[in-house]
């Protein structure tokens, strides 16, 4: 049973990159990715390279037992494992040398779990070792997590603990979104531009007047809508030498292979209790950003934009209320092109109709509603070595 919407931002339009919100987890990704830790690869396991490149999901999808409050983790793990581009990276990691290191290395434990899932003939396996490993990194067992938050945590742990720099780069390429933030003084021509990277686009589901947005495209458009900072939000302008009204806008620079969208289906009331927004919000199976965003919301050339065509890959859905609920994942197998629903140990093949059911409905509060959406690029732009080999 997992919480949703605990940490990951407020409903007021917070346009700060998602990474800034995960401070409680102390797992940050570098903004402006300048500093890259480069560590020498210390050991290699030749056995693993032989496994490398094998398409995952050999038989049927395999479930993961719930260890107690791990439905959120299970759902996210399934999303990672069903992504062959991710497993292509995971299978090439360096195996830690010592037993203790092995025990506490998240990528390695994930790989072990993946192998267990693929080799076993069982319908579900137990992610116990990974769970213990994560608990060493402040992801406690038997604690309710928000899926968006846990996703960031997991990803950051992965990035931190994968030693090979090329793999780290691949991982970043696979998931990070590049945007450019613009702050323009409305009094003079002073402009501040800054590039930042994000792992997810935290999309509000209500607009400024608290009206419900009813399509994903609307959410995206609203997210990229320029905002005037006035009154208390005014910024200091260096040229004017005082606080002035600024226009804040965001431009899309680059979109990754796997695009993660976070529907902020919760809002804070005065009583500081969050409640879930379960209203109908439609998302498409195919998403073309060029059709959604206007020219000035993009900061990219045509060849980049040409790749902004996506297909829905996975939906992490939540049922229940904010403090009390259940996560499951709908994932489209990239090899079979079939949808599966993962409810912990229970896996079954489903159809698009089932996925559509997670659009939500106001009158049904306990129903599964989409919370995280994962889109996959239709045509990979520059075949990175890992991916190409993997294919």
């Amino acid at each position: 049973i997992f919480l949703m919407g605990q940490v990951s931002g407020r409903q007021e339009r917070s346009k700060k990159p998602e990474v800034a919100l995960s401070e409680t987890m102390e797992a940050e990704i570098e903004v402006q990715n300048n500093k890259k830790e480069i560590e020498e690869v210390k050991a290699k396991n030749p056995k693993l390279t032989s496994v490398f490149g094998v398409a995952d999901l050999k038989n049927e999808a395999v479930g993961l037992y719930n260890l107690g409050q791990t439905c959120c983790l299970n759902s996210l793990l399934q999303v990672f494992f069903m992504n062959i581009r991710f497993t292509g990276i995971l299978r090439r990691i360096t195996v830690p040398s010592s037993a203790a290191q092995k025990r506490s290395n998240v990528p390695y434990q994930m790989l072990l779990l993946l192998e267990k899932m693929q080799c076993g003939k069982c319908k579900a396996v137990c992610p116990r070792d990974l769970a213990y490993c994560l608990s060493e990194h402040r992801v406690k067992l038997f604690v309710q997590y928000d899926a968006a938050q846990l996703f960031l945590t997991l990803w950051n742990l992965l990035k931190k603990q994968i030693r090979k720099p090329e793999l780290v780069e691949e991982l970043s390429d696979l998931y990070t979104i590049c945007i450019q933030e613009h702050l323009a003084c409305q009094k003079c021509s002073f402009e501040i531009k800054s590039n930042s990277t994000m792992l997810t686009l935290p999309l509000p589901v209500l607009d400024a007047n608290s009206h419900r947005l009813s399509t994903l495209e609307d959410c995206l458009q609203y997210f990229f809508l320029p905002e005037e900072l006035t009154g208390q939000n005014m910024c200091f302008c260096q040229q004017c030498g005082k606080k002035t009204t600024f226009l804040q806008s965001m431009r899309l620079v680059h979109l990754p292979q796997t695009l993660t969208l976070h529907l902020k289906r919760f809002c804070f009331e005065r009583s500081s209790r969050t409640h879930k927004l379960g209203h109908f919000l439609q998302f498409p199976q195919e998403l073309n950003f060029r059709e959604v965003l206007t020219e000035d919301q993009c900061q990219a050339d045509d060849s980049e934009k040409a790749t902004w065509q996506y297909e829905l890959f996975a939906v992490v859905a939540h049922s229940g209320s904010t403090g009390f609920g259940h996560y499951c994942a709908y994932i489209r197998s990239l090899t079979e092109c079939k949808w599966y629903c993962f409810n912990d140990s229970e896996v079954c093949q489903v159809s698009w109709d089932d996925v559509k059911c997670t659009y939500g409905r106001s009158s049904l509060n306990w129903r599964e509603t989409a919370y995280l959406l994962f889109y996959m690029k239709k045509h990979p732009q520059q075949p990175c070595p890992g991916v190409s080999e993997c294919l």
Partner: protein
Amino acid sequence: MAQWQEVQSLANTYQEQVHQLYAGSALPMAVRQCLAAWIEDQNWRQAAEPLSSGHARMLFHSLLVLLGECLGSLGSGHEEFMLKHNLRKAQRDLQAEFEKQPEGFANLVANLLQEERRILRLGQAGGQGGSAPVASPAPESGREQQIQRRLAEFHTALQEAERAFRHLEDLQDAFDFCYKVHYQPAEGRSNDPGYIQELQTLQAKLQNLDRQRREVLAQMQQLLGRSETLQELLREELGGWRVRQQRLCLGGPGDTNLRPLETWFTELGQGLFQLRQLLRALNDLRQKVTYERDPLVAETPLLEQRLQEQLTHLLKSAFVVEQQPSTPNPGKRPLVLRTASKFSTRARLLVRLHDRNHHMEARIHIDRDPPNIKGFRKFNILTSSSKTLLAGDSPQEGLVCEFQYLTLKEQKDSRAGKGKGTSGEGPLVVTEELHLITFTLAYAYCGLELELETTTLPFVIISNNNQFSSAWASILWFNMLSSDPKAQQFFSSPPPAPWPQLAEVLSWQFQSVAERGLSRDNLLMLAEKLLGSKPSLDSTVPWPKFSKDGPAGFSFWAWLDGILGLLQEHLKQLWKDELILGFVSRKQEKKLLKSKRTGTFLLRFSESVLGGVTFTWVEHHEGGSPTFHAVDPYTASELVSLALPDIIRDYQMMVEENIPENPLKYLYPNTARDEAFGPYYSQRQEGTLNENQKYLNRRLIRVSSRQPSKWQTEEELVVATENLETLQLQPRGQGTQQAGGLPLSQPQSSGTPQGTPGNVGTPHGVATSPGTLQGVATRPGTLQVASGSLGTPQGVATRPGTFQVASGSLGTPQGVASRLGIAQVTATSPGTLQVIPGSLGTPQVTATIPGTLQVTPGSLGTPQVTATSPGTLQPTGLGMLQPQPQSLEPAQVGSGVPNIQGTLHGPPGAVGTVQVLPGGLGMLQVGSGDLGTLLGEQGTVAVGTGTLQPVPGAVEPPQVPEEQGTLPPELELLPGSQDVQELLQGLESGSGTLEMLEVAELMPNMVEPLGENFQLSAGSAALLDRHDPFLPLPEDSALPAVPSLFTDLPPLQIDASDFQ
């Protein structure tokens, strides 16, 4: 269906895969087949888990035992010999291979079953062709199949969950037992290695139990997820059904059978209730054994919430109004209710689950939450408003509550006070006021109690049948445009209708009334009429334009509904068989007919007359452009006595050569008239005149006189005496005598109207049957005199300038004029012309439209002439009207002179003179008579002198059918008797009187406007509607714009009377 059975019914290609699966398998297919049901019933996957070795062993041995039993039960037949051998071999092999590792065997079976399921899925999804014939008689849509497949999967998954639950029970019992026996914490035992081992076993058992609990919970989560999808699909199906029901209410096509939905809802409901039981049982298990981080503690409340919400939602949406409120009516139009008349409505609960011992009560309320509209009427439902939900004896009938024989009564203390007057005060008229009936049901089943409710579609409550048509218009508009069935305020600001949608709905109206919808061309014409231009996809029609009065004096809808009524009553078959082109604009009509040969005609609906149908034919002239003729529209009042095919068959045109001919030869495009309409002609009675027959056969036919340079054709009703095969229009001596003085008028030549009086003082007129007399005048300047002997004479005038005289003897004569400038006179007993009968009854002449004339007799012997509205007529006018003394009775003369310009009238004056003056527009007359005389003439033109004066006859019945003043030279009177001389004298003296009456004063005033008005009166319809497509357009150059006074003669009147 059991898995193995399904596998066997797969298509060949998939069966092949199954064969391959078992070819290399350690489990022979023979064993699978022999123990199919048992194998599928076990949880092999569970048994294959390393920790549950006991389970796997137990299963393995059970299988061997069962196999042995199976072998024992096999007979000694030849075919079973091989099977026996195979099974025996399998038993040996299995025992040898898996005795040591039953888990391996469990794993093997689990994998086989899983693989079978995979093949099954493939086969059932892709194997449309060649797959096993499923026992479904009707081809089902993909949607239905999908729902059924999902329901089946749901139930399979539910069974699996139940199986897993039973296994969980076993595990828990085992653990519970071990725990009670072995767990004895005491000092010193912690070092006992045996005890430690037992504790470890116990720990393992608990682990196992915990995992099984989590597995069951995950299964239930999954089940709830799938049922959410199922509910979503059912919701869509139900939505589709609602739309179909709404369309069906409007007369559209659609199947509103609820049976499949009921089955699906019930199955899903059953599944959810089962799941609910399961969840309760899980809670019971938790009561017995719980531990730290027990998943049951954490997760069951969530599952309960989800399940409760789903069940509630399912049940709430399953309560539907199956039959919308309706009263029986010919148009099969539901949702229009009339106060005090009975109606019925029915609701159904699609989830057919109930407790037989618990009676559920359904109630109905009307307007439970009335909208805040001023003057909104309130109603009570008379008769009982509650009912026990009946399950019916057979489960097929379902859970239904039907309310029949309901009646509505308006609350006297409605907001605006007196109930009657409220309708006009609110912003909504009665027919735009929408009402709702709400059904509520106290549902209880298996401990779940819910208050369900559903509402009908909004309906309109009327108090009078004449509101029906506009009420139906409201229903059409609402159901076409509203997606919210509870929007009672809809007509506070009704949205416009997109034309394509409206077109479809209009077509349904025709479809449901006469089994043929509207063609593209029909709709195009209607669109142009409504929109004024060619319709585009986003053209919209505002509500007032559709339903409120238009320029013609009636709304578009009233016009269309008039046509629908006409179709339903009289023309259903012709419309259905596409003989009526119907909606054709005049322009289009000309275009169609232009290229056709002379005599080609088409049937279309009148645009100026409510519920009128007419035909137009084309005539080609040498060297000239073709001319088109249309006959004055027929309405229900005419068609009720004469069917349209018969009218077409017998239609006559009076031409100059005096040979009547039927100008209707070919039905457009090119079908011979009799070929097209032959099947619809009524049986013609061959009139063989024998001695037993008292009367000649007769039938009504329609004729028109040709009016040169007139587009329109005048037409009257004639009684034709049918003697032989030929129709004779000539009065025949024999005939008239036999008929007791049945005269026939005959037009002599074009444009020369003549009235032919019959024998001894017989009036002209039409008697449709002995005793009743009815006269119908249809054109300007025409005259009709009708008289009858016994019944109630009645005259109906429908056009400007027409005139009618009806007379009867005993009944109450009544004349009704319905149009501008119509005069009506009523006369009673035979031979006596009384404009106003004054004897005993209360005769009344009523005129209802502005410019018409009303003659009302006052008390005994005091005639009164009253006219309403513009052009009023007063008894105190210019002395034009005079009562005439009759021989016996006090003289009653009422005379009508429609006068548009001013008033015109004389009070009953001196004795013995009656005068009637044709007034303003040159229509008019009056007849007077004595014994047996009836007099009537149309005074088309009364210029200058313009008066008509009847002469009272003393003993002999004089006849003065007359044109006065500048009588057109063509006009001739054909005396039917010897009274001609007197007649002529009468005329002369009449004109003398006229001068004395100083009409001249009036006349100069009349002359001016006359010329102008005359144009109008010449083409009668012009008075009504300048846009009438029947009217000549300027480009019809053959027609003189201003017809000459004298060449444009009034139409011919032919009258016949049949009285004994």
